[in-house]
């Protein structure tokens, strides 16, 4: 099990790195899906099978499909000169150093903590559901309101106002 954790973790970090360094948006999204799937493996071996299923269905299924649809709708890949101009390997140095500094601080802080060892056990959907609809009922309702706001916001912002007066006028302008 430990080996599976290390392999899945390595795959997750490498595919995340490839996702953020890739020029092509579709390839980056596919790498991100790979990363999400390996994180879902980690959830599974940590004893959270319900969350692993949700990760695959909602994250890798729904959210990433939304991303891919938008990328395909925008038809990008032609006009990114601005980023291509200064996204050289040299640009990665300073942010990488900053992120590494944060990582070192993180390791230092983690060394100070002492976690007692417990034997992990599987926490199934039943326990999660009971906890969610008793102790966290208010939070569930608040997140329902948040999703409603997301729907309304997405609908309102996604609407495109028609700027074309008539198709003949538009054709003349093009010519």
């Amino acid at each position, binding site marked *: 099990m430990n080996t599976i954790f290390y392999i899945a973790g390595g795959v997750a970090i490498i595919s995340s790195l490839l996702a953020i360094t890739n020029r092509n948006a579709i390839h980056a999204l596919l790498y991100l899906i790979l990363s999400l799937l390996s994180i879902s493996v980690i959830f599974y071996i940590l004893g959270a099978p319900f969350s692993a299923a949700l990760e695959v269905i909602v*994250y890798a299924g729904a959210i990433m499909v939304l991303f891919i649809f938008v990328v395909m709708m925008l038809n990008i890949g032609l006009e990114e000169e601005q980023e291509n101009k200064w996204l050289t390997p040299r640009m990665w140095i300073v942010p990488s150093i900053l992120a590494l500094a944060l990582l070192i601080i993180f390791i230092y802080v983690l060394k100070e903590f002492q976690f007692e060892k417990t034997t992990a056990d599987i*926490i199934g959907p039943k326990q*999660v559901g009971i906890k969610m609809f008793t102790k966290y009922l208010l939070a569930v309702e608040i997140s329902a309101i*948040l999703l409603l706001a997301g*729907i309304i916001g997405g609908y309102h912002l996604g609407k495109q106002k028609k700027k074309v007066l008539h198709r003949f006028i538009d054709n003349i302008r093009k010519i």
Partner: protein
Amino acid sequence: MVTISMEIQILFAGALFLTGLLGLLVRRNIIFMLLSIEIMLNSAALVFIIAGSHWMQADGQVMFIFILTVSAAEVSVGLALILQMYHHYRTLDADAINRLHDKKENEK
């Protein structure tokens, strides 16, 4: 089950978070910035799952579901905003929208 110490697991989640942060710092394409935010949210959810499995409480997974909700709402609104931005400016460069007032409208 996994017998790796919790420090290593949290370290892994932190490395994933910093990967997302690095992407957010370097990339200027707004789709990649949103994607990096997704990586960061996901690593935060991973910490909740790790803690939940360590103390054998279901609270971690409940929090994971809430993070999932927040991230779904964020992505839908963010992608709608990206569509609007592309519609107005014909670019996905985040630096192209740093003006409050539209210059082209002024010229007309």
